């Protein structure tokens, strides 16, 4: 029984890890292609989720602003949009955001130090957070795109019959795992087997060489930011469905950091494996060690693990080897 309970904790941990990996993936994509650590990735997920809720509920964007300026009282258009169209429209908005970021920010910072680009993304994070609030209001929103939620009765019954112990597994977590797997497979397929993906890998590897074979860096940057925006949207949908669309959603980015330190900033498989290890590790640690130290280990376990990695393997599990040439 003890063992079975631990396995249940493990499975739940793995599924939580998938959610971390989803966020980490967005970081890796942009970091690989442009060497920019995009601090705004978490806020992008929040913004995408807010926009999706706003569109689906037929909210009027900038309603508060419009009301204050013109003395009217608008809030909703009075229609609702089906989830599929809402998601498609939000994805388009994320592409628009990518183009705006490239044109207004990145373009003017070409060739600057990484720290400057990093600072720019911090600014972008604050801006986006404000923009999201002004556009859609700061209230906690409920996001429901029709993903099944709650404990899966089927799995509980099946494991109960088979093992004599019913596993409690959230159906949303199962769906998140399936969707994340499909997303990763899609991304890997895209980067390995399409022309645009090959160009993306080329840019990630060497800017000068990429230019010399006729690749437009700006196009690739817009593309990568669009993809990262889409990944943010998927992460936003999952986390938003789970715990509501609110400011704290943007803080999931903080959970992605230890994942990245573990997996390496430049590796897509690293983001996945790192996410799984963190998710699994923190749940098991809480289960076995937690009671001895008074619990709440989930708050700090990931960061301590990341610190240990920084000491012993700073490039992460899958990162590029750091070679010092003398």
């Amino acid at each position, binding site marked *: 029984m003890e063992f079975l309970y631990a396995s249940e904790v493990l499975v739940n941990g793995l599924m939580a890890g998938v959610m971390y990996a989803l966020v980490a993936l967005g970081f890796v994509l942009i970091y690989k292609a442009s060497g920019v650590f995009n601090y705004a990735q978490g806020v992008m997920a929040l913004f995408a989720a807010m926009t999706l809720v706003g569109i689906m509920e037929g909210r009027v964007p900038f309603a508060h602003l419009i009301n204050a300026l013109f003395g009217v009282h608008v809030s909703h258009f009075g229609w609702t949009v089906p989830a599929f169209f809402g998601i498609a429209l939000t994805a388009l908005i994320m592409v628009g955001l990518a183009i705006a970021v490239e044109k207004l920010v990145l373009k003017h910072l070409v060739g600057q130090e990484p720290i400057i680009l990093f600072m720019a993304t911090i600014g972008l994070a604050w801006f986006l957070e404000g923009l999201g609030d002004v556009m859609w209001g700061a209230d906690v929103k409920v996001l429901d795109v029709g993903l099944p939620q709650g404990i899966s009765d089927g799995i509980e019954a099946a494991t109960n019959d088979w093992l004599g112990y019913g596993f409690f597994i959230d159906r949303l977590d199962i769906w998140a795992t399936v969707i994340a797997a499909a997303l990763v497979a899609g991304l890997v397929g895209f980067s390995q087997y399409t022309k645009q993906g090959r160009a993306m*890998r080329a840019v990630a590897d*060497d800017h000068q060489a*990429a*230019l*010399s*074979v*006729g690749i437009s860096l700006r196009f690739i940057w817009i593309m990568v930011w669009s993809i990262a925006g889409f990944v943010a949207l998927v992460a936003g949908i999952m986390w938003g469905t789970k715990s509501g669309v609110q400011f704290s959603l943007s803080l999931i980015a903080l959970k992605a950091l230890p994942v990245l330190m573990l997996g390496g900033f430049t590796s897509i498989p690293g983001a996945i494996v790192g996410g799984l290890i963190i998710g699994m590790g923190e749940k098991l640690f809480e289960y076995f060690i937690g009671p001895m130290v008074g619990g709440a280990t989930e708050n700090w376990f990931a960061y301590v693990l990341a610190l240990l990695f920084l000491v012993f393997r700073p490039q992460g599990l899958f990162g590029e080897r750091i070679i010092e040439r003398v």
Partner: protein
Amino acid sequence: MIATPATEFATDGRRIGPVLMDLRNITLRFGGVVAIKDISFDIREGEIRAIIGPNGAGKSSMLNVISGFYVPQEGEIWFEGKKRPPMKPYEVARLGLARTFQNIALFDGMSVLDNIMTGRLNRMKAPLWSQAIWWGRAEREEVENREQVEKIIDFLEIQNIRKTPVGRLPYGLKKRVELARALAAEPRILLLDEPMAGMNVEEKEDMCRFILDLNDEFGTTIALIEHDMGVVMDLSDRVVVMDYGRKIGDGTPDEVRANPEVISAYLGVSQE
């Protein structure tokens, strides 16, 4: 179109065509430093054109001007009879100018095959959906492009390293892969920045042979930079000599060799 002069033949019977690229009064400055001073010369179709000069003469700058990495402050670049507006390097590449770099710019994380395939990116026009389901135009294109790339791989004798990540290759082979990637674009002009630099004698001979064969069999127009005088004289049809950013000589290898200014600037310096 260009006022085409009658086709000429090089001494060994190769066809030398009309002027493909004409550089007129190019001046390039970096702040107060003048890297290139009022240089004009042309590149004709089917020839091997060399730019030589001692270190710091401005050869690489010249190549960077041609390939769009530097934009000159003054002067005009005419390509295929049309004046070229200021362009980004990737736009120049799409016009049909492929280049290699003096200190090798390859995609280290990718295999040799993938590296060479990037040279053909601009020949692939299939839309993303077609690539996604691997059907129709995308499939046809990929197969055609792979065939072309395999030809180049055969030609440069790198079959056995096709799947090797480039980062693991020795220097001489990297140079060859870089040449293969440039060739894969089927360029109108192939620009080589010191293709023989840092190679041993055997590697140099191989590279020489490849360059000559390319030009001979496929009629590829080649512009190259080199400071190994012997190599240049054997390879090229015409030579531009640069020194301190100026052009001090232009002509066949024999003409250049006999030019007193070249002798004093180039050979004089190197004998010291």
